[in-house]
Protein backbone atom coordinates (compact mmCIF):
# COMPACT_ATOMS: atom_id res chain seq x y z
CA UNK A 1 0.00 0.00 0.00
CA UNK A 2 2.80 2.41 0.94
CA UNK A 3 4.61 1.67 -2.31
CA UNK A 4 1.45 2.30 -4.29
CA UNK A 5 1.08 5.65 -2.60
CA UNK A 6 4.67 6.60 -3.38
CA UNK A 7 4.12 5.62 -7.03
CA UNK A 8 0.91 7.69 -7.07
CA UNK A 9 2.78 10.69 -5.70
CA UNK A 10 5.62 10.24 -8.18
CA UNK A 11 3.09 10.30 -11.02
CA UNK A 12 1.73 13.57 -9.65
CA UNK A 13 5.13 15.19 -10.11
CA UNK A 14 4.75 14.81 -13.87
CA UNK A 15 1.34 16.51 -13.94
CA UNK A 16 2.54 19.99 -13.10
CA UNK A 17 5.54 21.62 -14.76
CA UNK A 18 8.04 22.73 -12.20
CA UNK A 19 6.79 20.53 -9.36
CA UNK A 20 9.94 19.21 -7.67
CA UNK A 21 8.76 17.29 -4.67
CA UNK A 22 5.67 16.18 -2.75
CA UNK A 23 5.95 15.31 0.93
CA UNK A 24 3.45 14.18 3.52
CA UNK A 25 4.49 14.77 7.12
CA UNK A 26 2.78 14.82 10.47
CA UNK A 27 2.61 18.00 12.54
CA UNK A 28 5.93 17.21 14.22
CA UNK A 29 7.73 17.07 10.89
CA UNK A 30 8.09 13.29 10.64
CA UNK A 31 8.07 12.37 6.95
CA UNK A 32 5.47 9.71 6.06
CA UNK A 33 5.65 9.86 2.31
CA UNK A 34 8.07 11.49 -0.09
CA UNK A 35 8.31 11.78 -3.85
CA UNK A 36 11.07 13.80 -5.49
CA UNK A 37 11.60 14.56 -9.16
CA UNK A 38 14.68 12.85 -10.63
CA UNK A 39 17.95 14.82 -10.48
CA UNK A 40 16.43 17.30 -8.10
CA UNK A 41 17.67 18.38 -4.68
CA UNK A 42 14.84 20.08 -2.80
CA UNK A 43 16.05 23.36 -1.33
CA UNK A 44 14.25 22.89 1.98
CA UNK A 45 14.66 20.47 4.87
CA UNK A 46 11.53 18.33 4.63
CA UNK A 47 10.97 17.82 8.34
CA UNK A 48 11.29 21.55 8.93
CA UNK A 49 8.57 22.20 6.33
CA UNK A 50 5.96 20.41 8.41
CA UNK A 51 6.90 22.19 11.64
CA UNK A 52 6.91 25.60 9.95
CA UNK A 53 3.49 25.03 8.49
CA UNK A 54 2.07 23.68 11.76
CA UNK A 55 3.20 26.84 13.58
CA UNK A 56 1.94 29.20 10.89
CA UNK A 57 -1.34 27.33 10.44
CA UNK A 58 -2.10 27.51 14.17
CA UNK A 59 -1.50 31.27 14.04
CA UNK A 60 -3.61 31.67 10.91
CA UNK A 61 -6.51 29.87 12.57
CA UNK A 62 -6.63 32.71 15.13
CA UNK A 63 -7.41 35.35 12.50
CA UNK A 64 -11.14 34.90 13.01
CA UNK A 65 -11.53 33.16 9.64
CA UNK A 66 -11.96 29.71 11.19
CA UNK A 67 -9.51 26.91 10.44
CA UNK A 68 -6.58 27.40 8.07
CA UNK A 69 -6.70 25.09 5.04
CA UNK A 70 -3.58 25.95 3.05
CA UNK A 71 -0.62 28.31 2.82
CA UNK A 72 1.26 29.30 -0.32
CA UNK A 73 4.69 30.85 0.21
CA UNK A 74 6.60 32.25 -2.74
CA UNK A 75 10.36 32.77 -2.54
CA UNK A 76 12.79 34.05 -5.17
CA UNK A 77 13.26 30.77 -7.02
CA UNK A 78 10.85 28.36 -5.28
CA UNK A 79 7.36 28.18 -3.94
CA UNK A 80 5.82 26.03 -1.26
CA UNK A 81 2.17 25.00 -1.34
CA UNK A 82 1.14 23.37 1.90
CA UNK A 83 -2.16 21.84 3.00
CA UNK A 84 -3.66 21.09 6.36
CA UNK A 85 -5.18 17.62 5.89
CA UNK A 86 -6.49 16.65 9.35
CA UNK A 87 -3.44 15.57 11.34
CA UNK A 88 -1.19 15.43 8.29
CA UNK A 89 0.53 18.11 6.24
CA UNK A 90 1.01 17.83 2.49
CA UNK A 91 3.75 19.99 1.01
CA UNK A 92 4.52 20.65 -2.63
CA UNK A 93 7.88 22.24 -3.46
CA UNK A 94 7.95 23.76 -6.92
CA UNK A 95 9.76 26.37 -8.97
CA UNK A 96 8.39 29.87 -8.46
CA UNK A 97 7.25 29.81 -12.11
CA UNK A 98 5.06 26.72 -11.60
CA UNK A 99 1.29 27.16 -11.81
CA UNK A 100 0.13 27.82 -8.24
CA UNK A 101 -3.54 27.27 -9.11
CA UNK A 102 -2.78 23.77 -10.41
CA UNK A 103 -0.83 22.97 -7.27
CA UNK A 104 -3.74 24.11 -5.10
CA UNK A 105 -6.10 21.93 -7.12
CA UNK A 106 -3.73 18.97 -6.79
CA UNK A 107 -3.73 19.39 -3.03
CA UNK A 108 -7.51 19.28 -2.92
CA UNK A 109 -7.46 16.06 -4.97
CA UNK A 110 -4.98 14.49 -2.58
CA UNK A 111 -7.07 15.14 0.49
CA UNK A 112 -8.89 11.83 0.14
CA UNK A 113 -5.54 10.00 -0.15
CA UNK A 114 -4.02 11.64 2.93
CA UNK A 115 -7.28 11.00 4.77
CA UNK A 116 -6.69 7.26 4.23
CA UNK A 117 -3.19 7.57 5.75
CA UNK A 118 -4.49 9.65 8.68
CA UNK A 119 -7.26 7.12 9.39
CA UNK A 120 -4.80 4.21 9.28
CA UNK A 121 -2.47 6.03 11.68
CA UNK A 122 -5.33 6.80 14.03
CA UNK A 123 -6.51 3.18 14.03
CA UNK A 124 -2.98 1.98 14.73
CA UNK A 125 -2.64 4.41 17.64
CA UNK A 126 -6.02 3.37 19.05
CA UNK A 127 -5.04 -0.30 18.73
CA UNK A 128 -1.72 0.33 20.48
CA UNK A 129 -3.52 2.01 23.39
Amino acid at each position, binding site marked *: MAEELVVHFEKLLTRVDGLLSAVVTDRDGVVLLRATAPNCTP*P*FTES*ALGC*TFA*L*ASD*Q*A*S*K*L*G*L*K*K*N*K*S*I*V*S*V*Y*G*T*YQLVQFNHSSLITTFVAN*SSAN*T*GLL*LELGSELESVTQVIATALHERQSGAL
Partner: protein
Amino acid sequence: MLKPKLISQVLQQATTGGVKATILLNPEGSLLAFAAQSDRDARIYAAIASNIWTIYSKHCKADVGGLSFLMLECEEGKVAITVVSTMILCLVARDDVELGILKAKSEALTRHLEEPLSKVAGY
Protein backbone atom coordinates in the same frame (compact mmCIF):
# COMPACT_ATOMS: atom_id res chain seq x y z
CA MET B 1 7.56 62.83 4.36
CA LEU B 2 4.53 60.53 4.25
CA LYS B 3 0.95 61.73 4.60
CA PRO B 4 -0.76 59.09 6.78
CA LYS B 5 -4.27 60.06 5.72
CA LEU B 6 -3.37 59.62 2.07
CA ILE B 7 -1.91 56.17 2.71
CA SER B 8 -5.18 55.10 4.38
CA GLN B 9 -7.12 56.43 1.38
CA VAL B 10 -4.90 54.42 -0.98
CA LEU B 11 -5.43 51.29 1.11
CA GLN B 12 -9.17 51.98 1.16
CA GLN B 13 -9.25 51.60 -2.62
CA ALA B 14 -8.45 47.91 -2.26
CA THR B 15 -11.22 47.20 0.25
CA THR B 16 -13.86 46.53 -2.38
CA GLY B 17 -15.36 43.38 -3.82
CA GLY B 18 -15.10 41.30 -0.67
CA VAL B 19 -11.76 42.56 0.67
CA LYS B 20 -12.42 43.22 4.36
CA ALA B 21 -9.17 44.85 5.39
CA THR B 22 -6.00 46.29 3.88
CA ILE B 23 -3.22 46.87 6.36
CA LEU B 24 0.27 48.31 6.24
CA LEU B 25 2.48 47.26 9.14
CA ASN B 26 6.12 47.09 10.11
CA PRO B 27 7.88 43.71 10.50
CA GLU B 28 7.36 43.89 14.28
CA GLY B 29 3.58 43.86 13.80
CA SER B 30 2.83 47.52 14.57
CA LEU B 31 0.21 49.18 12.41
CA LEU B 32 1.23 52.02 10.12
CA ALA B 33 -2.03 52.52 8.27
CA PHE B 34 -5.13 50.49 7.62
CA ALA B 35 -8.54 50.36 6.02
CA ALA B 36 -10.71 47.92 7.95
CA GLN B 37 -14.10 47.54 9.61
CA SER B 38 -12.61 48.10 13.06
CA ASP B 39 -9.21 49.00 14.48
CA ARG B 40 -9.39 45.96 16.78
CA ASP B 41 -9.65 43.67 13.73
CA ALA B 42 -6.78 45.52 12.06
CA ARG B 43 -4.54 45.06 15.11
CA ILE B 44 -5.28 41.34 15.29
CA TYR B 45 -4.65 40.84 11.57
CA ALA B 46 -1.41 42.86 11.78
CA ALA B 47 0.00 40.95 14.74
CA ILE B 48 -0.75 37.53 13.27
CA ALA B 49 0.33 38.46 9.73
CA SER B 50 3.72 39.71 10.94
CA ASN B 51 4.17 36.55 13.02
CA ILE B 52 3.44 34.28 10.06
CA TRP B 53 5.66 36.36 7.78
CA THR B 54 8.53 36.05 10.27
CA ILE B 55 8.04 32.27 10.57
CA TYR B 56 8.29 31.76 6.82
CA SER B 57 11.01 34.32 6.14
CA LYS B 58 13.32 32.71 8.69
CA HIS B 59 12.66 29.32 7.16
CA CYS B 60 14.32 29.96 3.80
CA LYS B 61 17.99 29.66 3.11
CA ALA B 62 19.92 32.41 1.36
CA ASP B 63 20.15 30.56 -1.95
CA VAL B 64 16.39 30.33 -2.54
CA GLY B 65 15.89 34.10 -2.48
CA GLY B 66 13.88 36.04 0.08
CA LEU B 67 10.21 35.50 0.88
CA SER B 68 8.16 37.62 -1.50
CA PHE B 69 4.54 36.55 -1.05
CA LEU B 70 2.28 34.55 1.24
CA MET B 71 -1.29 33.44 0.60
CA LEU B 72 -3.37 31.85 3.31
CA GLU B 73 -6.66 30.11 2.69
CA CYS B 74 -8.94 29.58 5.68
CA GLU B 75 -12.44 28.16 5.92
CA GLU B 76 -14.06 31.60 5.97
CA GLY B 77 -11.53 33.89 4.35
CA LYS B 78 -8.31 34.42 2.46
CA VAL B 79 -5.24 36.49 3.29
CA ALA B 80 -2.47 37.83 1.10
CA ILE B 81 0.76 39.10 2.67
CA THR B 82 3.60 40.75 0.80
CA VAL B 83 6.50 43.10 1.40
CA VAL B 84 6.57 46.76 0.33
CA SER B 85 10.00 48.33 0.84
CA THR B 86 10.75 47.44 4.49
CA MET B 87 7.08 47.08 5.46
CA ILE B 88 4.46 44.40 5.20
CA LEU B 89 1.18 44.73 3.32
CA CYS B 90 -1.69 42.47 4.30
CA LEU B 91 -5.06 42.02 2.59
CA VAL B 92 -7.84 40.05 4.28
CA ALA B 93 -10.82 38.98 2.20
CA ARG B 94 -13.98 36.93 2.41
CA ASP B 95 -13.94 33.35 1.26
CA ASP B 96 -15.72 34.13 -2.04
CA VAL B 97 -12.86 36.34 -3.25
CA GLU B 98 -10.51 34.47 -5.57
CA LEU B 99 -6.83 34.27 -4.68
CA GLY B 100 -5.89 35.67 -8.08
CA ILE B 101 -7.70 38.97 -7.57
CA LEU B 102 -6.30 39.24 -4.05
CA LYS B 103 -2.81 38.77 -5.45
CA ALA B 104 -3.45 41.29 -8.22
CA LYS B 105 -4.65 43.91 -5.71
CA SER B 106 -1.59 43.28 -3.51
CA GLU B 107 0.74 43.72 -6.46
CA ALA B 108 -1.01 46.90 -7.59
CA LEU B 109 -0.74 48.41 -4.10
CA THR B 110 2.89 47.32 -3.85
CA ARG B 111 3.77 49.05 -7.12
CA HIS B 112 2.00 52.19 -5.97
CA LEU B 113 3.52 52.36 -2.48
CA GLU B 114 7.02 51.03 -3.15
CA GLU B 115 8.61 54.32 -4.17
CA PRO B 116 7.18 56.62 -1.44
CA LEU B 117 7.81 54.06 1.30
CA SER B 118 11.38 53.46 0.11
CA LYS B 119 12.11 57.16 0.67
CA VAL B 120 11.29 56.89 4.37
CA ALA B 121 12.71 53.40 4.86
CA GLY B 122 16.02 54.75 6.09
CA TYR B 123 14.45 56.68 9.02
